[in-house]
């Protein structure tokens, strides 16, 4: 975390919370206020290089799930709520993923539930990213007391445990629709992105081109939208992906607790019914394994995509830059990184 090493303890609250996403699935480098040049259109070669295996794999996984959400309800073999004669049947040709305790088809529930799960995730991701952009970038750009207050606000939201707060919130909003659930989730999920964006904004707000825009009399909002945002868009993307993952995991947890409308199929709702019908003790693994696996896979896809973005921001993280011989020769590990093509951003450091 370059932020800490650059200016020790000058801003204690910020330093301690300085946005390394250690807790999240994608840790480390994005908070590094090294200014990557992702937005530089004059360097297409670099962009192609970020299409690493991880990035492509993440894209493929997510593509499949998006497809599933799009056409799932159309291709589902049964009505997911339809009660059937085969109760708790293990996977068979009639029911590829078996049936639930009331004879409902698990595969159909999975296919139909994908849409609701993804919609809430993406919606919450969008709202949260919007909030974190407004608060983080504005705070970083404006500075002074406004910045202190805004970053205090995001630090408070970062520390307060999300799930208990969400439970209390959704408890008071019984049977909220997808939009309400997404809004409530984004209320607890914006703080991390805001911190990272603020750190990034701080590091570029004294750049010459920003000063030039200021001197040229550009209004503040215009500088933020046209000068700063394009330069933090890699971080913006990474923060969005992370928030979507957070939102999906959180809504599955909320649905599992029965805090959403449990008549609307989503993966969390499937787990809720599996748990309340004691699928575990009935040995009906086909009931609770698929939805959880789907959540984990979609999370992996998002995380892989995020790695792509991270490695784009911080080229040192690329693990495949040291494949093969180079890796074996450096058995001790302490080898200066292979910099085949030093970019200005790396030299800066």
């Amino acid at each position, binding site marked *: 975390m370059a932020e800490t090493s650059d200016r020790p303890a000058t801003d204690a609250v910020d330093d301690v919370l300085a946005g390394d996403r250690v807790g999240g699935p994608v840790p480390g480098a994005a908070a590094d206020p090294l200014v990557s040049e992702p937005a530089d259109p004059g360097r297409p070669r670099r962009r192609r290089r970020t299409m690493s295996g991880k990035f492509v794999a993440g894209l493929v996984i997510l593509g499949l799930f998006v497809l599933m959400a799009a056409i799932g309800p159309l291709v589902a073999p049964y009505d997911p709520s339809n009660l059937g004669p085969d109760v708790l049947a293990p996977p068979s040709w009639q029911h590829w993923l078996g049936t639930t305790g009331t004879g409902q088809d698990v595969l159909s529930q999975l296919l139909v539930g994908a849409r609701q799960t993804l919609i809430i995730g993406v919606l919450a991701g969008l709202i949260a990213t919007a909030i974190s952009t407004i608060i983080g970038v504005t705070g970083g750009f404006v500075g002074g007391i406004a910045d202190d207050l805004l970053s205090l606000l995001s630090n408070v939201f970062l520390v*307060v445990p999300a799930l*208990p707060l969400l*439970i209390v919130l959704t408890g008071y909003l019984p049977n909220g629709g997808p939009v309400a659930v997404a809004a409530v989730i984004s209320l607890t999920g914006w703080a991390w992105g805001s911190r990272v964006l603020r750190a990034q904004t701080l590091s570029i707000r004294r750049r010459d081109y920003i000063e030039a825009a200021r001197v040229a009399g550009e209004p503040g909002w215009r500088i933020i939208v046209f000068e700063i945002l394009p330069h933090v868009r890699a971080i913006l993307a990474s923060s969005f992906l992370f928030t979507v*993952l957070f939102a999906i995991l959180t809504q599955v947890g909320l649905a599992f607790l029965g805090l959403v409308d449990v008549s609307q199929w989503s993966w969390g709702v499937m787990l809720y019914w599996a748990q309340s019908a004691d699928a575990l003790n009935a040995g009906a693994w086909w009931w609770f394994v698929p939805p959880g696996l789907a959540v984990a896979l979609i*999370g992996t896809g998002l995380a892989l995509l995020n790695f792509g973005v991270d490695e784009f921001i911080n080229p040192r993280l690329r693990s495949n830059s040291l494949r093969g011989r180079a890796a074996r020769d*450096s058995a001790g590990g302490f080898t200066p990184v292979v910099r085949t093509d030093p970019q200005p951003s790396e030299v800066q450091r």
Partner: protein
Amino acid sequence: MKFLLRRLGFTLITAWAAISINFFLPRLMPGDPVQLMVARLQQQGAVSPNAMQAMQVAFGLDDHTSLIVQYFQYWGQLFRGDLGRSITFYPSSVSEVIGQALPWTLVLVGVSTVISFLLGTVLGAFIGWRRGSWAETILPLSTFLSSVPYFWMGLIVISLFGAKLGWFPLSGGFDQGIDPSWSSDFVSNALYHAVLPAITIVLSSVASWILGMRNMMVTVMDEDYVLVAQAKGLSRLRVLSAYAARNAVLPSIAGFALSISFVVSGSLLVEIVFSYPGIGYSLYQAVNNEDFPLMQGIFLIITFAVLLANLVADVAYVLLDPRTRQDA
């Protein structure tokens, strides 16, 4: 110690914010959850006038006093440790319910988090040190693990080690036959029951520590001071631990704030899956019974616990990073 004082100040502000959120939430929410709650409470049986009075104050039914006065009355109740009465466990007070459940959660989640942090940091340091080697094959696996919902991992662990292999009990914190006490029988029984939930929490949370540490190791090892340490001829282990890892671990500790609330949220759901007699399970019961006083009390207590854990992490940070002590 300026650093620690600032952190203490931040902790107090956050605690104040959490308490205020707790106060205003039931008053701002649409509908009238408070009326509903009082009606439910009256169904439970005769409510003493005193308890009714306390409820009215706690949830703003007392029309005669202004919001400001209510706010201060609320603070007064808090300082007396009065969080209202639980509807689920009536006539127990919320503080009593939480007091019974809290030790279970503190031990389970506390110990698992420490194990997970140590394990993940050591593994991550090793993988980062051996960048590009076979050790990196663990990265995709940890990516997958870090995306798994905690409670689902619990279901899998139960069905594998509990139901299928029968090695560990399926649920609960101790066997029904044994009375909770400090006897060795009970403690060993409780530990036996804690193994599976602990494994679940460690498995679900360790991945993010591994990934975080690995990424920082990769960055730190390119620093000049690591090269110098190596050039001085120090042993590899010393360079790894005292130079590279020591610096790489700082962000992990600094990011503890975010992680701990993540881990705690996940662990609450794990308790539910295991019917573990901790805070998470109480929260589940509170949700099922629309027991708002208990829900809110649990929210407060968990927030305080997380804040405390963060303060501990801050002290560790000061011990590890001399720069924070400069202006002392």
